[in-house]
């Protein structure tokens, strides 16, 4: 292939671009934390961290880290003026109660129905850990997923049916991969954007599920 896949940073920029000013957003552990780097202070977006922060600011400057001021990924962060602290039950009340406009999550797989798998590989000897993934996936108004389009073995992570354990059913709204941006709609998956140099038909072949072409240019 001659295409240049989007980097994680380019994917994060696309997610950031699609977050309306004024949104309340939770950025999940891993790749989604990169989205924070692409949000500008002039377009206010309020970040929630499930360990009890609203109005989370940028990472703490070296030397200014405070072990009591971390995000859900355990990284030292800051709080913006206007931010607030609260306890875990209140924090997940925000999540489960539908008050978050958007959460951005990593994934192992997303199905055509928007089912999400991101908490467990299902391997028999793996130690399971779920954290807030199921709450976020079930609770946020819009769930945006960031993941590579293909596994290292070249299999599509967008699938007809999940083979990994479910995090939440029918929850994903948009999938951002290194090859495409795909909306999950009631009428199936709709491709909104494709990496330069990749034909729609080729994307369909690589993905292996039905996709419709809804690109602005299409």
């Amino acid at each position: 292939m001659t295409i240049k896949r989007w980097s994680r940073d380019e994917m994060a920029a696309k997610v950031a671009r699609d977050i309306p000013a004024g949104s309340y957003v939770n950025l999940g552990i891993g790749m989604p934390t990169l989205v924070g780097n692409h949000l500008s202070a002039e377009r206010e977006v309020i970040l929630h961290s499930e360990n009890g922060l609203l109005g989370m600011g940028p990472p703490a400057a070296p030397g200014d880290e405070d072990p009591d001021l971390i995000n859900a990924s355990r990284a030292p962060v800051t709080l913006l003026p206007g931010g607030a602290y609260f306890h875990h039950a209140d924090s997940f009340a925000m999540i489960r109660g539908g008050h978050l406009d958007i959460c951005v999550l990593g994934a192992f797989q997303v199905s055509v129905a928007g089912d999400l798998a991101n908490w467990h590989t299902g391997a028999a000897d793996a130690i399971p850990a779920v954290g807030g993934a199921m709450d976020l996936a079930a609770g946020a108004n819009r769930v945006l997923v960031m993941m590579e389009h293909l596994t290292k073995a070249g299999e599509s992570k967008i699938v007809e049916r999940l083979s990994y354990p479910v995090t939440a059913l029918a929850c994903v709204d948009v999938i951002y991969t290194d090859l495409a941006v795909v909306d999950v709609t009631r009428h199936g998956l709709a491709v909104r954007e494709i990496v330069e140099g990749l034909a729609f038909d080729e994307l369909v072949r690589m993905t292996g599920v039905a996709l419709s072409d809804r690109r602005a240019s299409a």
Partner: protein
Amino acid sequence: MIPATRRAGPAMIDKTVPTLADAVAGIADGSTVLVGGFATSGVPLALIDALLAQGARELTIVSNHAGNGDTGLAALLAAGRVRRIVCSFPRHKDSWVFDGLYKAGRIELELVPQGTMAERLRAAGAGIGAFYTPTAYGTDLADGKETRVIDGRAHVLEYPLHGDVALVCADRGDRWGNLVYRKAGRNFGPVMATAARRTIAQVREIVPLGALDPEAIVTPGIFVARVVQASDRDDAAATPRAA
């Protein structure tokens, strides 16, 4: 004081609105309106008066009381704008407006134990589908409700109480909608703020972003849609009444 609004850029969040009329704009006929306050404390009087002026009809009101004297909720009831009230303590020596409507069959009452009312509002805000509570088991207020014995104790199944709008009275607020309350004026405000699609807060003072202690914010702005200054009780009383 420079209004907090002035400081917000075009893509900045600014939930403050300049007038009480702006604050209650768009409340539709038939709405369920959660109204904070307990007796004299924490009642959003200015917003209730503004709702009276605004004109929405066929309202369902969720409030601990059903109005006292001839002002506030009582005036809204007297104007025939309330179809139904969900309430724990409607009766009081000065609840004559409600009493008259109730006895005339012109208002519907759903009586709810105070703690169950608070918990149903909390469930609405917290995304809980339903919950089992021991309160009211074996009483008339649990008539017809599903019950279950859990750990040897009988419980009643209760469902969330959602609002289209909540009107709350806080002490201070900022342009992100963060709120702190004053003493027992807190009461239902914080939990109603979580339970409505659109929460409108009247505050004594709008303060600059960052002025509220993040350790002491009671209602984080995520739960609030609009903030309006209504400087004190006298101002509220001075608001022209439509009825």
